[in-house]
């Protein structure tokens, strides 16, 4: 069984087709990247897969559960780290983590254990008592991912997780994402080609809501006839690749 399987997944907004008959499969434990220029349909795809918006037609199945019919079951499988850092600035790092434990209905014991585990995994010890709003962008992203991991999701959506971060913060976050590979299925959207190439098992490139290609970075480069992934992306999106 695939972690994610979409079947003609489509989203229309009035006369605009944001996602057009999308068919793709993501294996369990895979790190799968969605690439595309602005308006390609990446965020809309993630919103549909995370039950934030209903598809106009088609369906998608997460661990076999339909995003149209089994919303509660799908929500129990997933977690999202949105594009903007979705933390509560007025609460401390610990309180942000406690909030997520609370909304997932954890007992006090489980809450304590989970916070200790994630604090260690994400290296949050140094900032655990600090207000989230006082943290740097890199630390806020870390906290955002920790909040997403609280529920022990089977599928984690990371929407442009390194957007706006400096080189060091991005490198740290890449290490963190690598450390999660295999433990959880990760769907990553990004505008950074090198990020997708360095982290992903497979990459899907979208344009105008359509899936252009879905393969490993090496095969995409071979298909485009270039050794440079960014050039390959440009060739494919501009329709140059055969």
């Amino acid at each position: 069984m695939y972690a994610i399987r979409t079947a003609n997944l489509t989203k229309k907004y009035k006369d605009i087709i944001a996602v057009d008959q999308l068919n793709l499969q993501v294996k369990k434990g895979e790190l799968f990247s969605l690439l595309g220029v602005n308006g390609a349909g990446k965020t809309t795809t993630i919103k549909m897969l995370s039950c934030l918006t209903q598809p106009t037609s088609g369906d998608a199945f997460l661990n076999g559960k339909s995003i149209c019919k089994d919303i509660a079951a799908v929500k129990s499988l997933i977690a999202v780290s949105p594009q903007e850092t979705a933390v509560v600035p007025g609460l401390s790092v610990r309180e942000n983590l406690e909030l997520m434990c609370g909304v997932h209905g954890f007992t006090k014991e489980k809450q304590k254990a989970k916070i200790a585990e994630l604090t260690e995994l994400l290296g949050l010890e140094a900032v655990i008592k600090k207000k989230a709003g006082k943290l740097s962008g890199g630390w806020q992203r870390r906290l955002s991912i920790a909040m997403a991991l609280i529920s022990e999701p089977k599928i984690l959506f990371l929407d442009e997780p390194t957007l706006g971060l400096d080189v060091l913060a991005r490198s740290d976050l890449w290490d963190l994402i690598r450390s999660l590979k295999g433990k959880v299925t990760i769907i990553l959207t990004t505008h950074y080609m090198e990020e997708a190439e360095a982290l992903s098992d497979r990459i899907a490139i979208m344009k105008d809501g359509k899936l252009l290609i879905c393969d490993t970075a090496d095969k995409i480069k071979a298909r485009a006839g270039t050794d440079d992934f960014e050039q390959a992306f440009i060739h494919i999106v501009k329709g140059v690749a055969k």
Partner: protein
Amino acid sequence: MRMLAFANKNTKEILRDPLTLFFGLGFPLVLILLLSAIQANIPVELFEIQHLTPGITVFGLAFMTLFSATIIAKDRGSSLLQRLYTTPLTPMDYILGYTLPIIPISVAQCVICYIAAIFLGLDITVNILYAVLFIIPVSILYIALGLLCGSVLNDKQVGGICGALLTNLSAWLSGVWFDLDLVGGAFKKIAYALPFVHAVEMERAVLAGDFTGIFPHLWWVIGYATVLLVLAVLLFLRQMKKQ
């Protein structure tokens, strides 16, 4: 219990904002002291402490509208709600989670006003306890108005509309600052078609021990609170679907 975790977050956010403490708890106190000082020099029946205090306790709730609207609008603007929408929280959890933390703050504000009023000469009677009790449906009315505004406006718009416009409108149309008979006509009719003056007259009746005088004002308050709460839920669900 999931709802309580969300409500706890909202409580902390509200209480950690120093402006909340000033406007929510301090400002009504300042008004009571100031207007009582004016009353001591130029006696006006409207500003006698037994008339003034119920009015101020209702007027102070306008800030609860601001708090509830601001907190929703900020959560919507920060993508926090987008994250939470993917959790098992239900729409009712959100509405209760935003509403419940503000009720104790409203009650605390009311109690502080009455303690100040006692020092300024208000007779201590059991009716004060009833007046504090009856402030709860009024606070739900004001909180629901905030939930409604916060579901459709961004945090900057909330500041202008709830912080300035609504605070003033609810004051002018409540009969706290001037007798509505002085203006009369359409102004008075509009005021009595809205809930603010009914809330004030209900509280005045309760404090005076005139329990038949509570009606029909209580029905106006409960009616408006119910309608606004239902509208707030619908608008909140609409923006939830828009995500």
